[in-house]
């Protein structure tokens, strides 16, 4: 009984987990959840995640939801000595930095990004016009966050230090979608953020998940 991931290849949170599974070389089965049919709100799925959101991971007897909890679990459970530790547990200084920048993505980057992605990509699929006021408001917030990143990446190659970590990985899905909006200049106008992003795009794990990331029904 292998690892099963319930989700959708275009869903940012599913992508976050898939990227981590690929980085750690963990074999898994992606079980598609039909979001457009509301499958995630049906009793069978709610039994796995009472919040009715994807993704959910099943690994043996463990069922776990919340993408950033899943990536943390995978990083710990499937850390083999030959692969880089995404959590940098052997070094207090490095592991502190990873924890801090994981939270930065969660509490500063995501809240600024998520409404932009929703308004630009998802609202039209629901037959609604994007709300430009919401987009503009969050672009301003995003600018503030990316200014902090630009300064940070002047001191370190990646967010937590001179090493790729879970903190960088968690950014992949929203960054990927941002680059497909009319506001990619938020990244390309900031040379260090741009270099950081382009470096990450070369990773095999990211190339694999990118194939499924298209907003369509």
């Amino acid at each position, binding site marked *: 009984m292998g690892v099963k991931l319930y989700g959708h290849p275009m869903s940012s949170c599913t992508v976050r987990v898939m990227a981590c599974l690929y980085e750690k070389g963990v074999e898994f089965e992606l079980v598609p959840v039909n979001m457009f049919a509301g499958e995630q709100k049906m009793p069978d799925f709610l039994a796995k995640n*009472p919040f009715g959101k994807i993704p959910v991971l099943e690994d043996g007897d463990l069922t*776990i939801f919340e*993408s950033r*909890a899943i990536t943390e679990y995978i990083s710990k459970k499937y850390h083999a000595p030959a692969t880089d530790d995404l959590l940098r547990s052997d070094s207090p200084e490095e592991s502190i930095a990873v*924890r801090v920048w994981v*939270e930065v993505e969660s509490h500063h980057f995501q809240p600024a990004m998520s409404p932009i992605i929703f308004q630009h990509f998802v609202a039209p699929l629901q037959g609604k016009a994007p709300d430009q006021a919401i987009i503009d408001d969050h672009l301003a917030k995003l600018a503030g966050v990316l200014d902090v990143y630009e*300064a940070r990446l002047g001191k370190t190659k990646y967010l937590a230090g001179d090493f790729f970590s879970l903190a960088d990985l968690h950014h992949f899905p929203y960054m990927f979608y941002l680059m497909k909006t009319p506001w990619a200049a938020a990244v390309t106008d900031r040379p260090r953020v741009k270099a950081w992003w382009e470096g990450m795009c070369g990773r095999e794990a990211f190339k694999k998940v990118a194939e499924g990331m298209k907003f369509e029904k």
Partner: protein
Amino acid sequence: MVVKVYGPDYASPKRVLVCLIEKGVEFETVGVDLFKGEHKAPEYLELQPFGSLPVVQDGDYTLFESRAIIRYYAEKYKDQGTELLGKTIEERGLVEQWLEVEAQNFHPPIFDLVLKVVIGPLRGLTPDPKQLKESEDKLCQVLDIYEERLSKSKYLAGNFFSLADLSHLPFTQYLVGKMGKEYLIRDRKHVSGWWDDISSRPSWKKVLELWPGLY
């Protein structure tokens, strides 16, 4: 050199204070006055570039984001004080899951309510009833799920107290204080029992005694 925690009068830093007390780690505190804008001063932004609370200084290390800080100390001091991360990788996975639930589902609506009902009036602002109702409804949906979970499990991650429960203390305390929203907890039998349990821990009582804040 003792751990320094900035901003003890406010809620998010209290997440760190209660964790350090549970782990038996000594610390001192440094006051930061949000109402005077001290969190936006250049010296503070050197420590925390987003201007949020808390910041912790521990020797040469500077840490910010309260949930990063509590995870760090719970791991570093795994062998002393209360076990806050479960005993196995799987239990740790469930602790992380419910910590993320707190951060992603519980925190946004309760933070909005606190900002509008407690902090706003101190700045002369009146809350919009429609927005208040929206946040309260969202919080109720989350608390209904907690009620179901806590009818099967003594604490959120399992039958053991963990960081996931601890993380709820600072902002839930507002609900049962002068905010006048205690009914959100008391209307739900299992959430109510869980709240009484976690809020009566000596660590939380000590935090409230020493840093009563705006509750």
